[in-house]
């Protein structure tokens, strides 16, 4: 009897911890992307920075939850038991395309907290069709810390159906971790 009580207490404690951690990740996500609000995290690197970081191929990176993402959340509100927040990841690389303009790629990401019971629940932004994910966390000053975990990369172009152009982020060491200050929406244009 005593063993059963102890086991029940242990299970309850584990469940509470897991729930708190999941709530923490969910809370982190909601702090990064307040409901019904357009949000923009953006960083553009200048020439001096890029010269000092030759292993970085990213010139600019933005994570935006603008009207298209908010509309999608609005339309799917209350559906499903594992809520997610769509956002857009926009990355400009050093190499140039037509008219010598830097190549820019964008992908929709679905950000959500790891499920309860995950060993170390985190908020995670996933690209569909096995395109990989990144971990967004909120810095003390409200900026987004953007991290691609070791051994992983993000397929930002050439996803589910468009195989015309494939592009991955995170294959170079300098393209795995960024700090993106929160900015007015204009910075994500």
């Amino acid at each position, binding site marked *: 009897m005593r063993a059963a009580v102890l086991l029940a207490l242990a299970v309850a404690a584990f469940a509470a911890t897991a729930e708190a951690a999941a709530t923490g990740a969910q809370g982190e996500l909601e702090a990064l992307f307040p409901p019904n609000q357009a949000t923009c995290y953006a960083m553009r690197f200048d020439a001096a920075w890029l010269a000092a970081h030759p292993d970085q191929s990213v010139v600019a990176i933005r994570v935006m939850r*603008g009207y298209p993402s908010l*509309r999608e959340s609005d339309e799917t509100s209350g559906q499903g038991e594992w809520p997610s927040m769509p956002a857009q990841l926009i990355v400009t690389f050093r190499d140039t395309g037509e008219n010598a*303009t830097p190549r*820019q790629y964008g992908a929709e990401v679905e950000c959500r907290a790891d499920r309860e019971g995950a060993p170390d629940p985190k908020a995670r932004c996933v690209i569909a069709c096995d395109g990989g994910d990144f971990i967004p966390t909120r810095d003390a000053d409200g900026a987004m810390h953007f991290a691609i975990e070791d051994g992983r990369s993000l397929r930002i172009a050439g996803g589910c159906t*468009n195989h015309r152009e494939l592009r991955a982020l995170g294959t170079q060491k300098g393209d795995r971790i960024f700090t993106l200050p929160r900015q007015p929406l204009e910075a994500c*244009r």
Partner: protein
Amino acid sequence: MASPIIGVALLAALAALPARAETDRSFPEGRPTCHARVYDAAHLAAHPHQRVVAISFARITRDLAAEKQFIADGEITEEMISATLRVRFRGDPVTHIARLECDGTRNGARYCEAPACQGGEITVAPAAHGAIRISVGGTLTNGTFVPHFLHLDDSCETNRLIVLESGADDREFLLLAAPPEACR
């Protein structure tokens, strides 16, 4: 004699068509289209914050070719269209042109993006009498208006962006069906 079951199935299939047919009326497959609007001095005087003085949305020969290619590539649904957006702003003599790819047909609306610069989007929805309504940004169900934008060229990373923005008075445009000349 045709089976009544087939007849019922046919009627059911036709009943499912209106939303699609509604959009197809604005953008019939394989046929060029043009919708345009030029705002006169009186309108602009009454809307001092409106930047757009002329706007057109067309599917010209190259757009129809692109639509064929989309289907040939097997990448998209039949509802996807290619279009050419032309915009002229107040005090700017240049007509800015963007090639768009439009997809998604919720309530007959399509969402259009300019492939050169990411993140921008406008909504194109059918309106009465063959007209279309172009929206920049939109209103959520709680009544909040969320602004948005669309790049009109490939100036994504320059200091001088050419962007159609919802702003104070550029949120919605009603464009009437027009002859092709109006979209040149």
